[in-house]
C-alpha cells in the first residue's frame, strides 16, 4: 500500500544533545537573546513553537518577538506560535506530576503533527521550581527522565529557561547539571551531579553524596523506581563518595521497582565497602564489573 499521508514529512531532528538544553540567564537582554533566535528558527523550519511562561508576562514575550522583527501576532493567529503560562497548562492540576508530563509531551507532538506542523519546539520558564509549587521537588526527577522518555523518542526541541535571579545557586547548579547540553552563563557544578545516560534508562552520578545531597539522591531514587522499561542503570564512575543513607535510598528504590533490576556500573570503593557491611542492601542491585 502506497503512503498517502498528507502531513508534511517531519524535519530531520537536530543533533540529540542540542534538543534538550538548560539555558541560564541573569538579565532581560540575555533572556531575549536566547528567545528570539530560537523562535525564529522554529518558525522558519515550519515547527510549532510553544512558550510556557512562569514569571514573565506573555505580552512581554510577544512584544520582544515583535520588536525583533518576528511576526508573532500572525504566527499566533495561525497556531504556529503559542504563548501561554505554566499555570494555565501543565501546572493547573493539584501538583506537578512528571509521570503525566511525559504523556503530555507525546500528545503535544502528535497534535502538532496532526495540525500540519513539521515539528515542535518549546521553551519552558522553570523558575516555578524554586517557588514552592506543589510537586516542585519532582522537577529534578522530571528533567532527568525527559531525556530518555521524551527526547530520545520524539524529534522535539525544548529549552528550559532558568533565570539565575530567581533560582538559588545550589538548585540552579543541580537542575542545569541535569541537562546533557547547556547554554548561557556557565554554572558551577553541583556537589552531586545527576545526568541522564544517553541511549539507556538510567543516570550518571558524579561528585560526592552525603546528608547535604539527600534531596538529589531522592530524585535519583525516583528515577530508579519510576522509570518505565526493564533494567535501570546508574553509572557511578564519577562518584567519589556516598553515605549509607544515599545507598539505602537507592537500594530501596531498586526494591520498589516493579520490573527489571538496578545495575550499578563502575561501583566505587565506598559503595563496595558499605555493601560489604550491609549485604542485604544488595538484594535488588546488580554490580556490573566492567
Amino acid at each position, binding site marked *: 500500500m502506497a503512503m498517502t499521508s498528507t502531513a508534511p514529512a517531519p524535519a530531520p531532528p537536530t543533533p540529540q544533545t542540542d534538543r534538550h538544553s538548560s539555558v541560564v540567564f541573569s538579565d532581560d537582554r540575555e533572556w531575549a537573546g536566547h528567545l528570539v533566535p530560537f523562535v525564529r528558527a522554529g518558525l522558519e523550519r515550519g515547527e510549532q513553537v510553544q512558550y510556557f511562561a512562569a514569571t514573565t508576562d506573555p505580552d512581554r514575550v510577544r512584544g520582544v518577538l515583535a520588536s525583533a522583527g518576528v511576526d508573532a501576532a500572525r504566527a499566533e493567529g495561525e497556531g504556529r506560535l503559542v504563548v501561554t503560562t505554566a499555570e494555565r497548562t501543565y501546572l493547573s492540576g493539584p501538583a506537578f506530576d512528571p509521570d503525566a508530563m511525559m504523556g503530555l509531551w507525546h500528545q503535544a507532538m502528535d497534535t502538532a503533527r496532526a495540525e500540519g506542523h513539521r515539528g515542535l519546539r518549546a521553551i519552558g520558564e522553570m523558575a516555578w521550581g524554586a517557588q514552592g509549587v506543589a510537586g516542585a521537588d519532582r522537577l529534578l526527577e522530571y528533567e532527568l527522565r525527559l531525556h530518555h522518555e521524551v527526547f530520545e523518542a520524539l524529534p522535539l526541541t525544548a529549552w528550559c529557561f532558568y533565570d539565575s535571579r530567581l533560582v538559588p545557586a545550589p538548585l540552579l547548579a543541580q537542575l542545569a547539571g541535569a541537562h546533557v547540553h547547556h547554554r548561557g552563563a556557565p554554572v558551577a557544578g553541583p*556537589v552531586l551531579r545527576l545526568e541522564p545516560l544517553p541511549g539507556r534508562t538510567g543516570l550518571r552520578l558524579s561528585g*560526592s553524596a552525603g546528608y*547535604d545531597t539527600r534531596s538529589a539522591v531522592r530524585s535519583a531514587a525516583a528515577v530508579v523506581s519510576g522509570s518505565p522499561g526493564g533494567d535501570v542503570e546508574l553509572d557511578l564512575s564519577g562518584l567519589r563518595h556516598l553515605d549509607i543513607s544515599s545507598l*539505602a535510598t537507592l537500594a530501596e528504590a531498586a526494591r520498589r521497582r516493579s520490573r527489571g533490576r538496578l545495575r550499578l556500573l563502575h561501583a566505587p*570503593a*565506598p559503595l563496595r565497602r558499605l555493601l560489604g557491611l550491609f549485604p542485604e542492601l544488595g538484594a535488588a542491585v546488580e554490580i556490573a564489573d566492567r
Partner: protein
Amino acid sequence: MTTHSRTTTYFRQPPGRGPGSGLFHPALFYRSEAEYLDGVGRFVRTAVLGRGAQALVVVPGPRLEALRAHLEDLDGRVTWLDMTEAGRNPGRLLSLFREFADRHESSESRPSIVGECVYAERGPAGTVEALRHQALVNVAFAGRRVSVLTPYDVTLPESVLEAARRIHPVVTEDGVRRTSPDFADPLDVCRSFDTPLPDPVDPLVVEFGEHELALARGTAEDWASRCGLPPARRTDWLLAIGEATGNSVRHGGGRGTLRMWRAENSLVAEIRDDGQLTDPLVGRRRPDPRSPHGGRGVWIMHQLCDLVEMRTGPDGLVLRLHMAVG
C-alpha cells in the same frame, strides 16, 4: 541500711554473680599461661561440654593459638577470633557479642563468650574504650542468659585492675572466685571514663554547616591522601567522617567543627557539635541499614576506624576517629 536494701541483698542475686538466670560476667585475673589456659579452658569446656552451649572466643593472637591447642577437642563448637583484628576498635566488640548471643541464646542454651579486650599493646586511649566496652556488657546483656568471661593479665596497670573490680560482679584471682566488693553501676563506671581528651597540636580545622559538608569531606580526603593513608583506608576514613559530619548537621544543632591531626601512629579526626548522646549503647548493635534511627552512622564508624573515642557533656558531643597509618 534500709530494710528494702537488706531484703535485696539477702533474697535477690545481684546480676552476674553466677550462671543462674541472668548475665554471668566474671573477670579472670591470671599470672601465668598455665593459669590462663586453666581458667579460660574450664569456662569454655563447662559451657560447651557441660551445657551444650556455643562459645565465642576473642583473645589476642598469641593467646588464641595457645587456647586453640588446649581446647582442640572442642573445635566445631567454638568460634575463634583474634582480638587484635575483630576487636581492634573495642567499640565494635559489643555488636559482635550481641550478634553471637542473639543467634545462640534460648531457654536451653546459654551462649558463652570469652573476650580479652585489654592487653598491653592497646595504649591508654584504647584501654579506656576497652574498659567502657566491658562496663556496657553489663547494660547490654542485663537479664540475658549469656556468660561473658574477661581475662586480665595481672601485669596490666593497677588502674586497669581497679576498673575491672568495679565492672565485674565476680573476680577470680589466685584461682579463687570472689564477689567483687567494688562492683558499681555500669553507667557510673562509664561516666568515670569520660575524662577530657588531650588537646592536639596544630590541627587542621574546618567549621561546617550543611552547605560546607562537601568541603569538609573534600578536605578530609585530600588531607588523608597527603598524609599517606593508603586508598582503601582513605575510603574508610572518608566514610566515617562523612557519617559523623552528616550526623552533626542532622542531630547536633545543624553544624559542627572538624579537626584533623597526626598522632604518633595514626590520623585523628575530631568532630565536635552541640549534640548529646542519650543512649550509651548507640552504634553498638548492628543496625537495620534501612532505618535512619538505629545508630547506623556510629556503628559504621566503629566498624571502619581503629579506635573511636566519644565524650558527651554540657558542651556537646565530641567524637574522635583514629585511623592507623604507615
